[in-house]
């Protein structure tokens, strides 16, 4: 359940200070989570209205993972490889709202000028690709570079429980461990892959998979963003200092369809899951503490988003000729 240090430990005044400090830390994390949620809900609406072309995989319900992990990273030197469900990773790590919105709307102001779209993003130290598993090997390669360059950078790579079916992940785990590379493997275990429950995807216990490669494992529920953030901070620190990989299993819940409207789970089950939506639970904590600050935060986010969408809608796309020209050089 949510932030026990916020809810339960209110006895002593020292505790009260801790709580206040913790709460203060929660605000920016909640802000990111809330932004991700709003952005993705808009994407689904834009799609329904025929304004967004292509595909989207939202991380609605899983925002804690993106926010808690990336907030433990140093965006100047650390590297992120996101999954196919990567809008949250992107926003949390790069903060680039406009670039993402314009990208999904296919505009030249998009972070990849509309070429990449939802699953194929790159900016600064952030990368994603639409092929499950393959990104993990790329991430290990990045970690090799960072180590060799002596940058002290850590590479975090996100993937799902379903992706753990891909053999290249095991090859990558082996090499990362053998060569002692600073990789944080982040398994977002939402118990489902597209439409397939985990029990049809995997034998044995996913969590032990990395241990056989002599990689340390941390497993936790990704409900409490502060708690996960704190664990991530120590884990990232450990990875950085030891230059050894770590395997973090975040148990989480996908509240929305895999992509758009393709959820075959029982609506009652989904409703029940939504009742435990971490975003809502964090919101309640903040609301109880400072409702007007919360309102201001949320208004700011939604307005920012509206502006961003409006700007992207008005923007032009990359000229087809400009793109086609690039073929000549091939």
């Amino acid at each position: 359940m949510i932030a026990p240090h916020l809810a339960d430990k209110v006895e002593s005044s020292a505790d009260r200070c801790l709580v206040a400090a913790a709460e203060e830390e929660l605000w920016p994390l909640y802000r990111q989570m809330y932004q991700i949620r709003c952005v993705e809900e808009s994407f689904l609406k834009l799609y329904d209205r025929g304004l967004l072309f292509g595909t989207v995989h939202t991380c609605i319900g899983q925002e804690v993972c993106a926010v808690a992990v990336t907030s433990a990273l140093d965006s100047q030197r650390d590297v992120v490889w996101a999954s196919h469900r990567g809008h949250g990773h992107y926003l949390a790590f790069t903060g680039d709202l406009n670039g993402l919105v314009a990208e999904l709307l296919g505009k030249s102001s998009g972070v990849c000028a509309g070429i990449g779209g939802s699953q194929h993003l790159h900016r600064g130290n952030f990368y994603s690709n639409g092929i499950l598993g393959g990104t993990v090997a790329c991430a290990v390669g990045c970690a090799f570079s960072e180590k060799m360059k002596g940058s002290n950078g850590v590479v975090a790579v996100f993937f799902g429980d379903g992706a753990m079916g891909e053999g290249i992940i095991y090859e990558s785990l082996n090499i990362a461990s053998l060569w002692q590379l600073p990789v944080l493997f982040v398994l977002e275990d939402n118990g489902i892959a597209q439409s397939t429950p985990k029990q049809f995807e995997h034998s044995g216990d996913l969590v032990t998979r990395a241990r056989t490669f002599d990689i340390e494992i941390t497993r936790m529920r990704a409900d409490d963003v502060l708690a996960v953030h704190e664990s991530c901070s120590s884990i990232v620190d450990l990875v950085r200092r030891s230059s050894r990989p770590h395997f973090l299993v975040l148990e989480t819940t996908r509240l929305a369809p895999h992509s758009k409207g393709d959820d075959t789970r029982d609506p009652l089950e989904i409703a029940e899951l939504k009742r435990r939506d971490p975003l809502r639970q964090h919101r309640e904590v903040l609301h109880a503490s400072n409702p007007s600050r919360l309102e201001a935060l949320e208004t700011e986010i939604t307005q920012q988003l509206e502006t961003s969408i409006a700007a992207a809608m008005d923007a032009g796309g990359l000229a087809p000729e400009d793109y086609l020209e690039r073929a000549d050089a091939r």
Partner: protein
Amino acid sequence: MTILESLNAALLSLLEEMPEVVLFGEDLLDPYGGAFKVTRGLQAKFPNRVLTTPISEAALAGLANGMALRGLRPVLEIMFGDFLSLCMDQILNHGSKFRTMYNDSVTVPVTIRTPVGGGRGYGPTHSQSIEKHFMGIPEIRIVAPSVFCQAGEVLEQAVRDERLVLFLEHKLLYTLQLFPESAGISCETVLDDRGYPAALLRNYDAGTPDVTLLAYGGMSRLLAPFLQRMAEEEIRILACIPTLIKPLPFEVLCRAASESGRVVVAEEGGLSWGWGAEIAARLHKTLFKELRAPVTRVGAADLAIPSARALERAVLPDEAAMESAVVEVLQ
């Protein structure tokens, strides 16, 4: 009947008639029924012979190879054609090799079905016509239904084929009707040497065509309107749309090419080393004197397929590209 319904019905009848048929692939559990719904309803009916799988494309292709060696007739669905890259080793170095390297003592009746092609904004890794990378593999067959064939029957034929078959389903065809109404266009079906059907469309009643257009799969959706427009401009076109695209049903293609001596090959995949390259090489060789213009190819730009709609449209071949090519060979 839509192509999707036709394929679904064919799979059902294969399951009913051939106990050795097994379907498997990612997300085949009902009610989901696969990412594109081609197998919907089948897992519920045949829970032991329609299996949802882990996300392990390489091993799935290997499983299919192994099953086929031991008497089954596996039909594997790869969710997007783009992921066939993960099956490359199993196709090139295992499935396609067994028969020949074991001195013809085995057959490998594997069918790998997969949706291919763009037009939906899925971006660089979910929109490719990846088949060109497999065309050069000895022993395998590549089959692609068009709107001008009984798609389901062609699928049955592929499954009954003793070879490893890549069966390409263009995403934009699924919802289309078989044999769309096309006023003024005649459609005739011929069988190639190996028994796969090829459609011959003509937008004229008598005489010889001005141009022969060779195309397959997803490109077929553009042909009826295109031929109608060409008829308006009094350009007589014979379009030949084979379902077996590799090995080339060369006699059929060559005969169609000879009728006009001016050939356009249209494919959705990137131009370089695509389907049309081999066709052009062989037609020029065989019809050196007869060709009145160089074989002219239409295909995607040799670039990643972008997500943005306008960019994707610009990269993929369309009617306008076919028209330019037709005009070109007529000059």
